[in-house]
């Protein structure tokens, strides 16, 4: 019986990949464990081993093909005496079905928000998604890399430090190519010692440098949180203004996919609680590039919370090399009149998907992307709530002490008379992140939950 070889998922967030190279050709005999192909994922180029034995009957996807969905048949192995025609026809449905099975990450790819009629009062840049001018399409990953490279070219005291940032080219390929351009002095591979290198980077910031510390994930930064808060955030105050910590702590934050409780926490609300820190949480590639450039130039310690699922998503980014996104300026991703939906980071994709569904039911949602959580652009949120009289917040983090809680209390104190309904906060569930696919989906916030929340505040 012929066996189909399927495009493998080689990372928790991989949805598709490039079939970089075949190491076997039709007619070759393969043994199980033999490396038969090289596959480029969103993170690295991986060797792909055969599981079954047999003869390569047919290669279905030529080498060099990009965007091959996970689970697409890429070759057929036949047993001795068989021919390819014995294999089931590689159905096109396999591609579609596999895409549908991938969790929420593809469900709401809002790279191009559907154009909505712009109300008269829409404010200009920086409260829009993009400034006027030419743009190019790039992924969040490319945007982050470009921001670092540009700032490192401009300022020789900027350097990158972290686990696997150099020779490995970045655990998530954010720093790919930087070692080649800037050398080992400025792209510093560290041992796996988060507390130690976070402290060293903080000391280096006092000594005249501008470190960018990459945490492989912010979950590991819990080992280093004493230096982020006690050493970096508080020193300017404790020294009476003599010395601050011009540095960036960056890395993926929040849930990826199926990596369990210790690798899936969203720290937005924790860091946003700390005076002395700036906290950024970009959604689009333009946010990522513009905010990271602002963060590197800022004289204060910046916690920069990225998202692994967003890394591979494409958005428009201004081509202007001087493009930055200022801190404390929320963007209005989608103007609306009936309800204000406030989010940040990947929450924006759920908010935008919900807004799309709500529009079909005649509810016009204004979606605000906060971009930075310290400072928070209260003015934009309050102005919107005063217009719509209703508010729903959307985030991935735990419910207790969430950003949504803080916004709800601020709105209550400053716009109480404008509210026609209580503010509803949509968050992740109050549980450690489960591993099981169904439970994980249940634990995370979904567009459907946002839709339900919006309807409840609209009394519909």
């Amino acid at each position, binding site marked *: 019986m012929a066996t189909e070889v399927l495009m493998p998922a080689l990372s928790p967030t991989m949805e598709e990949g490039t079939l970089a190279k075949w190491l076997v050709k039709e007619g070759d005999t393969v043994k199980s464990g033999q490396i038969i192909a090289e596959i480029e994922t969103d993170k690295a180029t991986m060797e792909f081993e055969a599981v079954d034995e047999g003869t390569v009957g047919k290669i279905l996807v030529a080498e060099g093909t990009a965007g091959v969905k996970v689970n697409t048949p890429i070759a057929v192995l036949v047993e001795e005496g068989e021919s390819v025609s014995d294999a089931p026809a590689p159905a096109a449905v396999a591609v579609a079905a596999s895409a549908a099975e991938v969790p929420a990450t593809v469900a709401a790819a809002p790279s191009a928000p559907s154009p909505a009629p712009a109300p008269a009062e829409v404010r200009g840049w920086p409260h829009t998604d993009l400034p006027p001018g030419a743009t190019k399409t790039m992924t969040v990953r490319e945007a982050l890399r470009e921001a670092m490279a540009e700032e490192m070219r401009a300022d020789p005291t900027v350097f990158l430090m972290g686990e696997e940032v150099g020779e490995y080219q970045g655990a998530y390929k954010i720093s790919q190519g930087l070692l080649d351009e800037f050398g080992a002095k400025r792209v510093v591979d560290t041992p796996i010692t988060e507390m130690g290198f976070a402290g060293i980077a903080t000391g280096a910031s006092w000594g005249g440098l501008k470190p960018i510390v990459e945490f492989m994930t912010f979950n590991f930064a819990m080992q280093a949180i004493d230096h982020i808060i006690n050493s970096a955030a508080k020193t300017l105050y*404790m*020294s*009476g203004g003599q010395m601050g910590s011009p540095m960036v702590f960056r890395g993926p934050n929040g849930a990826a996919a199926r990596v369990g409780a210790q690798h899936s926490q969203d720290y937005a609300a924790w860091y946003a609680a700390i005076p*002395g820190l700036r906290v950024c949480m970009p959604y689009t590639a333009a946010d990522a590039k513009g905010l990271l450039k602002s963060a590197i130039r800022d004289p204060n310690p910046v916690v920069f919370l990225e998202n692994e699922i967003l890394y591979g998503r494409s958005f428009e980014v201004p081509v202007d090399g001087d493009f930055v996104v200022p801190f404390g300026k929320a963007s209005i991703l989608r103007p609306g009149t009936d309800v204000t939906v406030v989010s940040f980071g990947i929450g924006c994709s759920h908010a935008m998907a919900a807004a799309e569904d709500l529009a079909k039911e005649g509810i016009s949602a204004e979606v605000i992307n906060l971009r930075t959580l310290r400072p928070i652009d209260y003015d934009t949120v309050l102005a919107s709530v005063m217009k719509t009289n209703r508010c729903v917040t959307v985030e991935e983090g735990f419910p207790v002490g969430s950003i949504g809680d803080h916004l709800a209390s601020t709105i209550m104190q400053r716009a109480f008379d404008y509210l026609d309904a209580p503010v509803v906060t949509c968050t992740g569930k109050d549980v450690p992140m489960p591993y099981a696919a169904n439970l994980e989906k249940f634990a995370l916030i979904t567009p459907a939950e946002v839709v339900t929340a919006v309807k409840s505040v609209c009394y519909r």
Partner: protein
Amino acid sequence: MAKKPDARPNVSKDELLKFYREMLLIRRFEEKAGQLYGMGLIGGFCHLYIGQEAVVVGLEAASKEGDKRVTSYRDHGHMLACGMDAKGVMAELTGRIGGYSKGKGGSMHMFSKEKHFYGGHGIVGAQVPLGAGLAFADKYLGNDNVTFTYFGDGAANQGQVYETYNMAELWDLPVVFVIENNQYAMGTSMKRATKSVTLFGRGEAYGIPGEQVDGMDVLAVKAAGEKAVAHCRAGKGPYILEMMTYRYRGHSMSDPAKYRTREEVEKIKTEKDCIEHVRDLLTQGGLASDEELKAIDKEIKAIVNDAAEFAKDSPEPPNAELWTDIYA
């Protein structure tokens, strides 16, 4: 009975007088701080350096302009030894606007960019990677500065110390790790905290050379400091100095020090005191008269009294200071 001084043919009178003056300043300053604490003028935690003066004074003598220092919360001595103004330090202790941090840092959190003093840190062991980071910056910038990173025998058991050792040696950072082994981590004696016989020896696992030094002997401290600094400036990476020292007072002002006997403390005070040691070298060597030393005593007393007066008279920070210096 004072220990009989060794012959020190290479030490000048001027240098001995300098050591005497600097150590005495720290001692009198700390005594005054203890007094002001008792009067309620200094609040919170206040960790006195009395007994350990030879460590910072000897090491400062081995430093040059541009070298940096960072330490824990027992930091008053380090600040005075690197030339920070006694008035500014004392006014910080009393929480006044004239203090180094405008009253917002307190005893444990003081800094002077001008004197390359980078704190004053309240989290045990945190200053160790921070100090290595200062050295990282100097190496990156290509100068020959060295960072003195001080920590105690208590901090020496923190994990981040060893993370730092590993990276400091891996990257050849110009940092002198100075372990001030005063033999008590708050109330826990070293032998109740570790089976290691020495603390400097732990550097061996990372390839960092080090040695144990009589931290009550300012001349021995300076000599060891010069050796360590030469190692760092030659680009050979970090060096560890384990200074065997002793604090006469409790861990902080609120510590009755019941974990050790009065006899133990008295024995060190009479046999090993670092200031008496230099005084003996000066007088028994015929280098200085009692009158000369008395004049210095008087001069130091005046500096400390002025600092105390300044610290009492300096106003409290205005309320508006609550909201400044959070962001640059």
